[in-house]
């Protein structure tokens, strides 16, 4: 675990460097804007990974936290004249509060939890239509200037911080507890893991990150309405991106998020309809679920392991990891493998 964690941290550091370099390159305002949106999307994917990947709770309701954050920041800037950073702070806090409300729902597991989050996000949208400032028609507020580099910096900075938090969580006691809960909830309980507390912490972190990027997203728009803020897409797309990239891995949301955003951009640019996007989304999800449940990072890790162990032969080689959930026919293997 340590060595792969170390290499991931190096990769993250490198990625952060890349982000910084990217930011300094001269680019048209349009491309800059799209890249900023891509980074925001990656941030949202990272937030989903905390609850869906680390904690293993499939959520289809991330839009709720994203939207709450969006409205929080929009209102803070629009009605209360707050600056950018305080507005983002409001976004984070509101999203975290929303998460606390959701905590009792943790009694549900698996499919029930998924439906629950879907329902909650849908409720959030309906409630916003009726009770949010501006109601269905939405609100206008001051957004970033066209050629400001603030949005990009805030997005990139947000991603770096979010990744750092993820690294910290994974190495911490909470990370171990989450992994245990994810692998086998009852077994985790039987060795003393406080699963509610652990999962609640994960949800809070997930919501806070989603809220931040929701707020940032709103500030790049200048106009917000419930349909935009709480769109189902904000729940589905990060799930897709992380499943594609590799649930529960550090780089999964980054890789999956970048690829998925790129695909969507390509679809729009090439003039395909949203139906094509749907078909692609569906096909990717199906394909991953059927053939590569561990996503790109998972497949890459397996390939690397096979490559690394190719000289070890019968006795030392790991059997190829089973498809999720089913252990291979157990045979004692003597090799030690740092995972």
């Amino acid at each position, binding site marked *: *675990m340590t060595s792969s964690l170390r290499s991931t941290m190096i990769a993250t550091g490198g990625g952060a460097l890349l982000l910084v370099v990217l930011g300094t390159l001269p680019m048209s305002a349009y491309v800059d804007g799209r890249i900023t949106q891509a980074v925001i999307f990656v941030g949202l994917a990272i937030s989903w990974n905390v609850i869906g990947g680390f904690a293993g709770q499939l959520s289809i309701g991330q839009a709720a936290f994203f939207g709450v954050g969006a409205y929080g920041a929009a209102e803070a800037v629009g009605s209360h004249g707050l600056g950018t950073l305080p507005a983002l702070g409001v976004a984070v806090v509101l999203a975290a509060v929303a998460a606390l409300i959701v905590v009792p729902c943790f009694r549900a597991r698996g499919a029930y939890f998924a439906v629950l989050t879907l329902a909650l996000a849908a409720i959030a949208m309906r409630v916003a239509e009726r009770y949010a400032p501006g109601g269905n028609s939405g609100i206008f507020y001051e957004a970033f200037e066209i050629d400001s580099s603030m949005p990009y910096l805030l997005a990139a900075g947000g991603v770096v911080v979010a990744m750092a938090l993820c690294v910290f969580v994974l190495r911490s*006691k909470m990370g*171990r*507890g989450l*992994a*245990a809960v994810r*692998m*086998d909830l*009852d*077994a*985790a*309980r*039987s*060795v*003393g*893991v*406080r*699963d509610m*507390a652990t999962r609640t912490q994960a949800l809070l972190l997930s919501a806070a990150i989603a809220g931040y990027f929701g707020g940032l997203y709103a500030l790049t728009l200048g106009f917000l309405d419930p349909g935009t803020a709480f769109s189902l897409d904000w729940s589905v797309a990060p799930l897709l991106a992380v499943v594609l990239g590799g649930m529960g891995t550090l780089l999964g949301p980054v890789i999956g998020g970048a690829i998925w955003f790129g695909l969507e951009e390509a679809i729009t640019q090439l003039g395909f309809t949203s139906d094509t996007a749907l078909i692609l989304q569906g096909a990717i999800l199906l394909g991953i679920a059927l053939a590569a449940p561990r996503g790109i990072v998972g497949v890459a890790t397996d390939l690397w392991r096979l490559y690394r162990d190719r000289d070890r032969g019968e006795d030392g080689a*790991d*059997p190829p*990891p*089973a498809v999720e959930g089913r*252990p*291979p026919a*157990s*045979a*004692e*293997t*003597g*090799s*030690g*493998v*740092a*995972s």
Partner: protein
Amino acid sequence: MIGARAERRTPAAGEVVLEVDSVGVRYGALKAVDEVSFEIEAGGIVGLMGPNGAGKSTLLAALAGITRPTSGSIRLFGQDVTRRSVASICRMGMCVTHQTPRPFEEATVRENAEVASMFGSGNHSSERIDRVLAACDLAEHADTRAVELGPSSLRRLELARALATDPRILLLDEVGAGMPSDEVEELAGLLRRIRESGVTIILVEHVMDLLLNVAERLIVLDQGRLLADGEPTEVLSDGRVSVAYFGEELS
């Protein structure tokens, strides 16, 4: 009890650590456990036996906090734990193993033990992990992922994980099931060593070899009710016990 970490002290030998008072577990009309009472003193190995359907595993689950008793009360170290969760009871010092091993499959043997130690023991120490793994003969597999282990290693991992929580009372659910007899011998030795280190053991067991090898006291259940409770020789010569098992008294 959120936040409060009870200091875990080692009870004196002979001190009562577990009081089971008229505990019952009911599923609708079925009384899986029916008004069972006994007390467990520190430092011994108690065997819990009975024919199929006697309620042994249900009782163990009730003690561990996995199942909630529908009547009666359970006191651990003097505190009422009848409604406590399994995680909470584990942190208090009573840990249970599962009949079918449930390891954290993607984690290594060491990581499995580490989770248990970090969360269940109240004072994590990698030294204890080394000792536990060595005692359970898993040291050489320490960095192997649980999903790659064979059945006997998995059983030992189940035990090691429970030991990593630094328990004062260990609840073992059919830990000897399906074991070849040479392993049963080794297991018996391990259990005795565990007992010597101050841990009280309650084991539900069908494998009579193991039970008679280690148990200093036998509690017999039949159809949910307490049938006999005492020294092995006494209990086994009790006619009612053989009736329960075989339907007739043996000469």
